[in-house]
């Protein structure tokens, strides 16, 4: 899930609320859920970046070790 998905969810929840399909309390809970999702998405990107960096470092060390 990326930040575009989160934007789409916000629009979808607002539409549901305006149509009366969900209550104010449910709408509030879904919006709070979006806030948490945003933090999860950002933290996931950070961990993914670290994983890629780990691969680069280990590959580079492997190459140098093989040649040395």
């Amino acid at each position, binding site marked *: 899930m990326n930040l575009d998905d989160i934007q789409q969810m916000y629009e979808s929840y607002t539409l549901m609320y305006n149509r009366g399909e969900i*209550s104010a309390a449910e709408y509030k809970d879904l919006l709070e859920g979006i806030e948490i999702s945003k933090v*999860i998405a950002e933290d996931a990107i950070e961990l993914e970046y670290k994983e890629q960096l780990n691969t680069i470092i280990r590959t580079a060390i492997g*190459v140098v070790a093989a040649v040395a």
Partner: protein
Amino acid sequence: MNHLKNLLLALLLSSSLTGCALWDAYFMAGYDSGEYTLVTKVRTEAEYALEKCSSPTEVRAIIDVMYFEANTLHNYTQHIPNNEDAKKLAKNLKELVYKTRELYYNGKDPSEAYCKAKLTLVAKNAENVQKVLGSKPR
């Protein structure tokens, strides 16, 4: 050999990383099947509960189990060294499930529309977390 050393140095410098970021990445906690199993359970339970949205009683029972699993995941990640990122993800996933559970125990049964929207959100977030936990270095 010198060429390779220069290449490695250039690679690291060009990415404008601090020594701390390199250290964190190099020593980060590796893939853990316990973590991966628990987040997979949370996702599967959310997807299963989605099929039961017409019955709040059944959803409530599944959410209880889901919250237990999310809480276990958070506790599991807590004392693994160099695992701060996984811990943060687990904490927020637990929070998302906790808030859903709270609404289900607030007296009035939540609507089917809310159930579908919220459980889709939980499932997608669990999948997101599953993806990165599954990609941790072996």
